[in-house]
């Protein structure tokens, strides 16, 4: 895989060298960031539509917080503290499965239960990290919450790529079934859909893609990218096609602009913050359009 990345990087750096694209692309870390953005944008934008429909907005945040505990466990068992993927994946998957199991048992609404688990995971994660902090660089907390898209390496890119392929292979054929199961579980069941199994599958997908993106863009940003582009797209669209398409476009554009703009115009803001701010601006614009145009007028209460 590394050879493929090298080839891609050399090609882009070559373009920058010849002045075809901006000179910031002469730096390998910028190119890496862009390549990740090109994968993360469509991935989170696409899955985000389902997250919004299923009202699981804070789920990825809870998983992101659980990743803190995963890192702490990784440090304790001796994994590299910059990329403790085994511990993060294992712990977060167990956490997500337990959350969904509790949801099925208690029959509570997703937002209540996710809220409960979100606080618990943050408390446990912060405590565990503090406990092992003597052994690690304290910046690790920042890295997990806010990520660092400009320091990604080939391992991070491999993890991201594998996760993306798994997500696409699973989510695309099951998209309609998941949608129907969230609209009317009873009807979905009659049509031969295993509603409970699908719920677990979706929770696992969001978990693995959150963990894969945590090192790169951070837990807070994963959540933002799952939500804001989908919410912005929902402001303007009436059909599922437009909803998904524009969510992917908004998410990818936010990532690319967020990385490029600060470097191009020398702005003193980190790439993570710039990505969210771009998405936020898009959201506000879509909201204004919705308020201004008569075709979006609906009942006031």
């Amino acid at each position, binding site marked *: 895989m590394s050879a493929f990345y090298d080839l891609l990087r050399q090609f882009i750096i070559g373009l920058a060298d010849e002045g075809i694209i901006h000179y910031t692309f002469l730096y390998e870390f910028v190119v890496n960031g862009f390549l990740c953005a090109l994968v993360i944008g469509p991935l989170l934008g696409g899955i985000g539509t389902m997250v919004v429909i299923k009202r699981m907005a804070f789920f990825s945040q809870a998983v992101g917080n659980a990743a803190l505990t995963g890192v702490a466990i990784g440090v304790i068992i001796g994994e590299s503290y910059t990329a403790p993927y085994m511990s993060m994946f294992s712990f977060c998957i167990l956490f997500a499965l337990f959350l969904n199991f509790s949801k099925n048992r208690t029959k509570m609404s997703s937002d209540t239960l996710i809220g409960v688990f979100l606080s618990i995971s943050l408390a446990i994660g912060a405590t565990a990290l503090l406990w092992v902090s003597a052994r690690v660089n304290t910046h690790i907390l920042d890295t997990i919450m806010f990520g660092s898209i400009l320091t990604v390496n080939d391992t991070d890119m491999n993890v991201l790529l594998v996760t993306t392929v798994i997500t696409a292979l699973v989510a695309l054929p099951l998209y*309609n079934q998941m*949608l129907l199961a969230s609209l009317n579980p009873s009807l979905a069941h009659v049509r031969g859909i295993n509603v409970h199994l699908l719920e677990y599958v979706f929770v696992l997908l969001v978990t693995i893609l959150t963990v894969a993106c945590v090192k790169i863009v951070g837990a807070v940003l994963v959540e933002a990218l799952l939500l804001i582009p989908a919410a912005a797209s929902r402001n303007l669209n009436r059909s599922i096609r437009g*909803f998904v*398409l524009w969510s992917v476009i908004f998410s990818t554009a936010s990532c690319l602009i967020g990385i490029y703009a600060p470097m191009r115009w020398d702005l003193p803001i980190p790439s993570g913050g710039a990505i969210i701010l771009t998405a936020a601006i898009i959201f506000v614009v879509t909201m204004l359009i919705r308020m201004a145009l008569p075709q979006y007028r609906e009942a006031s209460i």
Partner: protein
Amino acid sequence: MQGPSIEFEDVNLTLGNTRILQDINFAIRAGDIHCIIGANGGGKTSLIRSMLGQMPHSGKITINWHESRVVGYVPQLLEFDKTLPVTVLDFMGMTCQNRPIFLGVARSRRSQIDEVLDRVGMIGKSKTKLGSLSGGERQRVLFAQALIPEPALLVLDEPMTGLDVHGREILERAIVEFTDAGGTAIWINHDIAQVNEIANTLTYIDREVLLDGAPRQVLASGAAARLFPTLELLDTKTSEAN
């Protein structure tokens, strides 16, 4: 295409501490329109959901299938977020195709979808958002989805709720055509006049089976006379509430 016959034997259902169904015994013949009637909260929906395998019931429900095992199900009025960006066509597509619906409706399905939407008079609204439809229009779309793929058994949970006269006629005709062609329909229905007119058999359920048989015989019985004033009262209340 031939629909199944169905037998309910000693069906019981308890949820929490509440007994919902008690010793339910009756049978539905293949090719019949069988209406389930009864007061609100009497366990009608729970009974058909037990039949569909969605309730932890005890007892035996046997569906004697012939060549096809396809069930068309029209659930009670779909309650969902009205702002959801899903059009009528999206909804129809998501119920009957594997290709992700955001990539569009598969060409092989499109003519089938158009045909059933046309049958329920909703072809002109295929691009309308599901949330913008009136209750009756949504009910017609729900009915339309139950026709793809062609079912052997139609399970209808109050499909007429919110429908105007025209809509009722369309659905009534479609159900009669379906059973004339050999299909079996089990239909929760509050409208005694309609049941009397088109049902082959009916079962009155209020936790247990109170009446069962052909409408003419059952409605002439003394037990029916005691039950129906309540039902008529209930119908008036429902229409006032609407």
